[in-house]
């Protein structure tokens, strides 16, 4: 599956690159220079983020989170779940692994949804390492601000529908 994504991504790269090359060769070589500069600027941060996240996750008290996400915890529980999600480091699996453990040990589905969505939206190391350097900081903080209600909205949808 990982390979399929790489293939899909590189198919897009080749299609766009060929189109640009055929249309305007000087622009094509400019864009290669630009992409290379971008890549090498992001590289050290991504190394820090990816290699560090495993250690950060390992030293966190992940086993405490399930007990905080009980089904009867109401709005305070949702807020706590969202906060815990924001404090969980990024990296592709850390949040999902903790959330599954919580679900298995009896946490409520809305709380787990709030936790997962907050982690996806706000994992603080990810925002600092990846998002801030790639986008204007003002837009990133605006993005974080307008995302604040989203874990609650999704959790309330889960409560109202009684799913999953």
């Amino acid at each position, binding site marked *: 599956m990982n390979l399929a*994504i790489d293939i899909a*991504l*590189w198919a*897009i*790269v080749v299609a*766009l*690159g060929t*189109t*640009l090359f055929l*249309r*305007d060769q000087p622009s*094509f070589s*400019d*864009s*290669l*220079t*630009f*992409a290379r500069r*971008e*890549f090498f*600027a*992001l*590289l*050290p*941060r*991504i190394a*820090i983020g*990816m*290699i*560090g*996240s*495993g*250690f*950060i996750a*390992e030293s966190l008290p992940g086993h405490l989170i399930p007990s905080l996400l009980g089904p009867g915890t109401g709005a305070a529980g949702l807020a706590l779940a969202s906060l815990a999600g924001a404090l969980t480091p990024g990296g*592709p699996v850390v949040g*999902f692994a903790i959330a599954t453990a919580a*679900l298995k040990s009896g946490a409520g589905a809305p709380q787990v*949804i709030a936790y*997962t*969505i907050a982690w*996806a*939206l706000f994992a603080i190391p*990810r925002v*600092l*390492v990846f998002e801030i*350097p*790639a*986008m*204007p900081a*003002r*837009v990133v903080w*605006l993005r974080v601000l*307008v*995302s604040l209600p*989203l874990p609650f*909205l*999704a959790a309330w*949808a889960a409560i109202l529908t009684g799913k*999953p």
Partner: protein
Amino acid sequence: MTPARRPRRAFDWSAAVVATLAIASAVFVFVRDGQARFLSILTDDVSLFGSMLPKVLAGCLIGAFVTLLLPRETIAKWVGAESGIWGILVATVAGAILPGGPFTIYPVAGAFLAAGADAGAACAFVISWTLIGYTRAIVWELPFFGLEFVTWRILFSVPLPILAGLAARFAWRLMKPKIIA
């Protein structure tokens, strides 16, 4: 006509915060769990890092190509400040279908912003990838949660990038006079 953007530093305060946190955690894990556990985490993370590199490079290339292929006027018309709810919807769909990780999505969003997209569309794009992007759901989320949980989680998330994108565009308009002044 390379997109004009502020020069980017490879290492700044935000990277320093995370680096400090990472080094402290690594030392803590080494002391608490010993060398074997330390090396196993390190190997896992390094291989994960290696598997992400092609995606990062692809993201940088897509961002660079797209901004040169699509004229500024086209981007402004589709996802600019005057694009209305349609622009937010376009950004949401684009975020949901673009494959890759955050290392793909953020450079592409940054490139679109530099080329005339508005903050609302950029927010909708990033949030859409985060919450309803299928690649992430299939590769990472599904193996953990199973189909039913993920399907409902995604269904509940569909309206969220649109709402947040509209809110971001509204807030940006309120902020803008202050920025210019």
